[in-house]
């Protein structure tokens, strides 16, 4: 009995290993090779040198990191209280479903919906003008870009935090209160540290994709926000310089790996996240 079970596990691991090799390791290797293979010059580090000595690309990198950071902070500020509220509600599953629901809709559709909401004759402007504020420019502003990006990333932050909060033994906050801690102290000293794994996972699942957003920067930001995602899109689709596009891709992957390394729990006992 035990033997067949072991064999089953081995077979499964084998299949999964092959999958990883074909669809994760191989593409990454190809990307790396592509980035080193400069057209007409053969293998060289030229692309990397160009990247790190070019003002515009460094500016874009700083932009990408700065906006990804802002999006993450905004999402976290909204998600944490929301997750706490969710754990206290009666029909948790139902409310949770409402949070997850937007992820069932295609990203592009949601973004287009925001064009309708934020536009000149859009719902938000109509509401503002009916309250006597007059029309204001909402689309193509940094604020609008941050709003839409945070809205799209929200479920990916709420879920891990919610799960981490549910895992906290309810006796611990109760004990904290019994021992005379105020609810703020309980939050700060008991709940926040215990929910840290969820927060870290949430930060990873939001920060990393935010680094390479590109559709929203154009549709909502009107290309007033330029990130590395924009540059990659351009190199692959317009100039067809796949080699340089890959270089930017590799730089982004390294940035992501760094983020993971900084936010991953060393003791790693639980595994949770988007996948």
């Amino acid at each position, binding site marked *: 009995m035990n033997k067949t079970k072991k064999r089953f596990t081995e077979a499964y691991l084998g299949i999964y290993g092959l999958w990883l090799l074909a669809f994760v390791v191989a593409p990454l290797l190809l990307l790396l090779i592509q980035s080193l293979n400069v057209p007409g010059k053969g293998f060289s580090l030229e692309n990397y040198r160009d990247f790190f000595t070019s003002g515009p690309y460094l500016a874009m990198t700083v932009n990408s990191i700065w906006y990804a950071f802002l999006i993450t902070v905004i999402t976290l500020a909204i998600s944490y209280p929301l997750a706490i509220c969710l754990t206290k509600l009666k029909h948790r599953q139902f409310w949770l479903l409402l949070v997850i629901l937007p992820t069932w809709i295609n990203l592009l559709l949601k973004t287009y919906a925001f*064009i309708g909401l934020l536009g000149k004759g859009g719902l938000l402007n109509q509401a503002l003008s009916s309250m006597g504020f007059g029309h204001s420019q909402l689309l*193509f502003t940094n604020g609008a870009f941050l709003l839409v990006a945070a809205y799209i990333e929200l479920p990916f932050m709420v879920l891990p935090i919610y799960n981490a909060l549910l895992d906290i033994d309810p006796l611990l906050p109760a004990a904290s209160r019994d021992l005379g801690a105020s609810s703020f102290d309980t939050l700060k000293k008991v709940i926040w540290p215990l929910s840290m794994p969820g927060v870290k996972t949430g930060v990873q699942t939001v920060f990393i994709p935010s680094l390479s957003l590109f559709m929203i920067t*154009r549709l909502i930001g009107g290309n007033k926000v330029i990130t590395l995602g924009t540059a990659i899109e351009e190199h692959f689709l*317009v100039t*067809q310089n796949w080699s340089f596009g890959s270089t930017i891709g590799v730089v982004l992957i390294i940035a992501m790996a760094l983020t993971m390394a900084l936010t991953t729990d060393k003791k790693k006992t639980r595994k949770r996240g988007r996948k």
Partner: protein
Amino acid sequence: MKKLLMTFLAVCCLILALLGLDFALTASRAQPSSQKGQTLTFYNWGDYIDPSILSDFEKETGYKVNYQTFDSNEAMYTKIQQGGTNYDLAVPSDYMVAKMKKAGLLAKLDKSKLTGMDNLNKQFLNQSFDRGNQYSVPYFWGTLGILYNTKRVKGSDLTSWSSLWSDRYKNRLLLVDSARDILGMTLLSQGKSVNDQNKADLAAAQGKLSSLMPNVKAIVGDELKIYMAQGEGDLAVTYSGEAKNAIEKNSDLAYTVPEDGSNLWLDNLVIPKSAEHKQAAYALINYLNRPDVAAKNAKYIGYATANQAAYQQLPKSIQNDKAFYPKQAILDKLQVYQNFNSYWTQAYNDAFLEFKLGKS
């Protein structure tokens, strides 16, 4: 464990069922075609032919048309270059014809199999990208120009590209997100060519372009027409085809080509070298060259047709529309894009990227 296994099995069953359904559906669709002559794979831009023309063509000739679409010349190029699907007829723009020709992706046209070439307007034949039309047959053409809202902008103020730099358009202008077009129109405003390959000229154009920044509200892609129709911008630099779509949605909009000239773009029918049903492809080219068919197509698409005989059959209101069929004096000043090598493609795009970055 058992539960997990059950879920896993259920997912597998679902996948199998869907695959089976997909197979059954494709089989039922493919069957009639295999009995009745060949299937021609037509690779075209989205919504770039009157669908009834395709069904008429199928009825008349017995060929089946498998219509597939792309959204950029570069995407189409990559797909055809990588093989996989054998496309029998494709519709690249001017500079892309040159690029595909150079890469050996196009089949030379057998002129004896083509009919209706006399119907085409001489103006659009024998262009620099394909001398003697050895590989391509013009389909539709258009220009780069200015789309504006007649309620807020006077058309008579837009006689030259330089007028876009005027203070009165502060934060009101939308630009199409394309390096070649935006730098091209800047070069034109400086009296240079859209195909300029001179570092100093490009640097000067980039300098002038950066001073346009205060007027630019956003740099967007295909969604430009939606934004203009919604009144999000008061004027925009875009293509005549996109302008046409926007005007259909909002009748306050109008389109004009500045008098200092502009880019002329031409979309062309070509047969890729890898085509398997060349006979059918020739049949479709000839069918589309027929004046009545081309006129019907032009009415549906709304772009300017390269078929002179079809143009004669169009209603007077379309024929006299100077925005889309400009007068000869402007036609003479239009320039077709030449295919740049990778160095110049990169140079234009880098200049444009720096311009966009200057914004934030």
